[in-house]
């Protein structure tokens, strides 16, 4: 391997790593606030790519039906809760929020798909549609059992993962999609050839991480999520309800996954079931951070990207094996260095 190949592999690795980093951060966030190990995150990545691909082909993506279906289920759940609590007067507002808003987003996507709108508008609609699926999923699958143990939540997550993969096949079909590159240009930096596409991916990830940093550090809602993560009872006592925190967390996390889907689209062909492998790489990163440390998770994800890229050069058939074998020494090291607490959070 000469220097220029190494530079190329590094560039590839960092590009993929930046995407995995977003995913790893989303996983840490979801776990910190809700204690859910969010196995189905990969499906959201796949939905992101497939939605954008659908819009580029000018046909309404499966996300439209998925959104409407989940919005109806969530709305019915909300109405049922209102009736059971004897607060029927509140039902219309809840219905508007849980069914109305997602349906409006779905309608926008459905209506605009054949119009061949400018690329940034299509991306914005894709992000909105996939982000809206997050709170709906939380409302339907997790909120009713939010107090359950981490293990029960994990089992539900696995079930949700299979369900969403199946729904993906149903709504998006079996063919894979790849979205066109954002930019094909490249330039010479010293004697390294730099892709503008890679720069865009890394830049977008970094910018999004910056936005999240400001959100969690400066805004009341961001602080409320951190508060829930550090002390659930304390958060309730100042009026932050777990279901509010969960809903907001899933919106943010789903948005991050949708970004991953948009960014990964030009790099890999994505099928309805490709998400899982992608999310596993995010998980390796997240676990390097012990599912609690954001900087370590992001660094871990970058490492995964680099390792993947170099191992595909040396032993491309074993690239996944090498990446996932990495997790074993990391887990060993973590189990030896971290203290175990009695509580499960």
């Amino acid at each position, binding site marked *: 391997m000469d220097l220029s190949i190494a530079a190329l592999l590094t560039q590839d690795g960092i590009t993929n790593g930046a995407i995995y980093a977003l995913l790893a951060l989303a996983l840490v966030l979801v776990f910190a606030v809700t204690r859910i190990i969010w196995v189905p995150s990969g499906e959201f990545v796949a939905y992101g790519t497939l939605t954008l691909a659908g819009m580029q082909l000018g046909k309404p993506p499966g996300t439209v039906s998925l959104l409407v279906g989940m919005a109806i289920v969530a709305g019915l759940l909300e109405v049922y809760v209102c009736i059971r609590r004897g607060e029927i007067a509140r039902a219309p507002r809840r219905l508007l929020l849980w069914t109305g808003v997602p349906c409006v987003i779905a309608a926008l996507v459905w209506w605009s798909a054949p119009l061949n709108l400018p690329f940034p508008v299509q991306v914005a609609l894709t992000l909105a549609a996939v982000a809206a699926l997050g709170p709906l999923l939380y409302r339907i699958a997790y909120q009713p059992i939010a107090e359950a143990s981490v293990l029960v939540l994990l089992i539900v997550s696995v079930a949700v993962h299979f369900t969403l993969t199946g729904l993906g096949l149903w709504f998006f079909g079996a063919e894979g999609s790849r979205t066109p590159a954002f930019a094909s240009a490249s330039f010479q930096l010293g004697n390294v050839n730099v892709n503008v596409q890679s720069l865009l991916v890394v830049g977008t990830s970094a910018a999004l991480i910056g936005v999240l940093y400001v959100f969690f550090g400066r805004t009341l809602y961001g602080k409320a999520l951190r508060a829930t993560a550090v*002390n659930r009872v304390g958060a309730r006592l100042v009026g932050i*309800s777990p279901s509010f925190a969960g809903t907001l967390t899933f919106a943010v996390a789903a948005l991050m996954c949708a970004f991953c889907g948009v960014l990964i689209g030009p790099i890999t062909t994505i099928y309805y079931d490709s998400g899982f492998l992608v999310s596993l790489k995010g998980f390796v990163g997240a676990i390097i951070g012990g599912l609690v440390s954001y900087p370590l998770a992001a660094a871990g994800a970058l490492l995964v990207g680099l390792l993947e890229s170099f191992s595909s050069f040396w032993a491309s058939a074993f690239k996944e094996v090498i990446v996932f074998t990495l997790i074993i020494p990391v887990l060993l090291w973590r189990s030896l260095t971290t203290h175990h607490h009695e509580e499960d959070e």
Partner: protein
Amino acid sequence: MGILLRARRLSVSYGRVEAVHGISLDVSDGSIVTVIGPNGAGKTTLLSATIGLLPSRGDIDYEGASLTTLTVEERVAAGLVLVPEKRELFAGMTVAENLELGAFARRRSRDAMSALNDVYRRFPRLAERKTQLAATLSGGERQMLALGRALMARPKLLMLDEPSLGLAPLIVREIFSIIAGLKMAGVGILLVEQNARAALQVADYGYVLETGEVALEGPASDLATNPRVIDTYLGGSVPASA
């Protein structure tokens, strides 16, 4: 003076073990009601059920309406605020962030943060340590932060679970003078205390809770001179000036 909180036949269980057995209790506007009793009597359990952290049987009315269908967060938004025994601060966040979050339930009102200056005036120590992490505060400072965070919600009924726990006498006096000040400002207070002497001095009315039942109740000044209370909770010595 209206009744702010009215509990009737309130029972609370942990699984199949009942810890509070059908007790009744009233707190009126702008008054201090204290609940004293030995360890394990059910005082913390009573407060947890009132804020909604534990399910209970019986009736609890707050400002004339039943609380039973309200969640913890809805009770907080209605002005019912608890400083719990374990404080439950946001350890990894700064003093200022803890206080800001204390006003979370009031986030929609324009003067959400209006209590901040008041809290910093009452606890200058917190103002000096705004940017310090809650986890690094001393025990006394932590109590001040817990109380300050509760005040940020502008409570109508403030429930305090052993606010003097583990504090130096000087700070205990400070905390009790703050409690008296809050009463003057019209806040109703439900005060659970091990320090029965101080509690009965500041309170208007008192309940003695023993093994989950109200063993005695009456105006605080009567309880303070009751021989049984003096024997068990005031260390057996009659206060010099009763």
